């Protein structure tokens, strides 16, 4: 490794924090979706960093990352479909106007 492990982890933590911030504050559903992609990427980066630093000759952490990418893809597909449906229904995807959960 050309840099210490902790530096990579800090980058990952930064991605995570930013992603979480986005997920918490974005008014737009697609913005939230993008923020969640950032969070997933930070987790992936963590996995790869650890596998590189601590060694995993069979590459199983990388397999995990591949699986996460795939799941993220399906999540994005389903999420965007939902967003489209909601948009068509309510003419907005601003999530603070979508409060069906409010009893």
């Amino acid at each position: 490794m050309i840099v210490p492990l902790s530096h990579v982890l800090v980058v990952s933590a930064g991605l995570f924090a930013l992603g979480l911030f986005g997920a918490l504050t974005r008014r737009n559903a697609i913005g939230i979706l993008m923020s969640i992609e950032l969070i997933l990427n930070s987790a992936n980066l963590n996995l790869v960093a650890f596998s590189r630093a601590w060694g995993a000759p069979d590459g199983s952490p990388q397999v995990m990352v591949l699986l996460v990418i795939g799941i993220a893809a399906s999540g994005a597909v389903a999420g965007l479909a939902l967003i489209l449906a909601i948009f068509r229904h309510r003419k907005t995807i601003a999530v603070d106007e979508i409060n069906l959960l409010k009893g």
Partner: protein
Amino acid sequence: MDVLDSPLMPNTVGPLEFAAKAAFYAVSAMTLAGAWITVSAKNLFRAALGLAMALFGVAVLYLFLEAEFLAVTQLLVYVGAILTLIVFGVMLTARIADPNVPRWNQQAGAAWALTAALGIGLARILFTAPWDMPGLSTTPAKLSALGHTILTSYLLPFELLSLLLLGALVGALFIARRDPR
């Protein structure tokens, strides 16, 4: 600060290593900048471009971590597919360039404080924790080993994933089709 000694990181820092390190930090900065654009841009389309930047940066970080296959996959799947999808979603739905729409909701301040606390806390933990794990092999995984692992021990999750993708595809078609009524 760093206690990890690997053959790839000799104690003497030559010009090439310095350049590599500099590139790593530059890419990291670019990634975080992309992420910041993603969460802060008023224009959603710009946010998508910021996401592209961040994802691309992560791909390059994978290269630095000698996970070439993942880097390629990241580019193909994330930048190539998911991002395209998101851009389409943005164009189909959002009033993307409407300056009257605030980018954040009212809880931005609280969220800002909490996430900053989280980030700083994590960074402090990361910089102080002992990451040294002596006696572990630190050779990067070979691509052939990766392929072997996917198709042996992880075959079932792998196939399940394809099933999940299929389900997501069908479900998305079902949800997003025009209401026949």
